[in-house]
């Protein structure tokens, strides 16, 4: 098994990584970013869920 294939061991971490990348990285075109204006609640509920799952993972690791 290659090291990179180990990602399946921590799917939640990977999901959090994905969203972290999407929200914080990538090239800026307008410099005026609007986070999902039509659907603010959904975005933030989604993020809280992801953060919660990362916290769960940390608890389990401790």
């Amino acid at each position, binding site marked *: 098994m290659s*090291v*990179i294939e180990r990602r399946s061991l921590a799917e939640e971490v990977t999901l959090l990584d994905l969203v972290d990348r999407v929200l914080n*990285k990538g*090239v800026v075109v307008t410099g005026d*970013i609007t986070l999902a204006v039509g659907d603010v609640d959904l975005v933030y509920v989604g993020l809280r869920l992801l953060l919660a799952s990362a916290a769960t993972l940390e608890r389990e690791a401790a």
Partner: protein
Amino acid sequence: MIYLYAFVQGLRELDPSLQARPFGSLLAVTGDDEPDPLRFGLVVESLREGADAVLPVRFGERFAGEEELAAAIAPRLETFERRLAHVAGCVEVGVRIIPTGDAEGAAGGAGYMAARLREQRTVEEIHEALAAEARDSVRTSRDAGYLLERDELDRFSLAVARLLESHPALDLVCTGPWAPYSFAAAT
């Protein structure tokens, strides 16, 4: 409303709900439906597989219409072309170094500081070793991103495996391959 996902070159396949609009030597991949961050990320990752080069755009770029999109892209087109050339044919691998917990268990302030220092040196060492294997690299305190050509993934995996062997007290979380997000920011 037009939502912008990424710039690509050498596009082989595209989800039928998306469009590819030409700007200079690039294609801007857009959609009409508002994505959530997860959907957005999955689209960009599918482009990593469906195109030769992909430059991810930060989530949240939205335009009232084609004119607004073109007006926003035109003044910085050369920058985007340059960044895309930098990451062409490449993927990103993320490496997070998990601390050993030595510092937390150390007795006294001086012991704690010494353990933290050792930890920091190890992180530094590992980053330097991995950066030497990559085309480019970026890092924050414990997270790092490495830009690799697609066919360098196996070699990089081996380098990570070797580091794990030589640092038995250390854990590394390796994620990817990703679209090269960390190398997209225009500079």
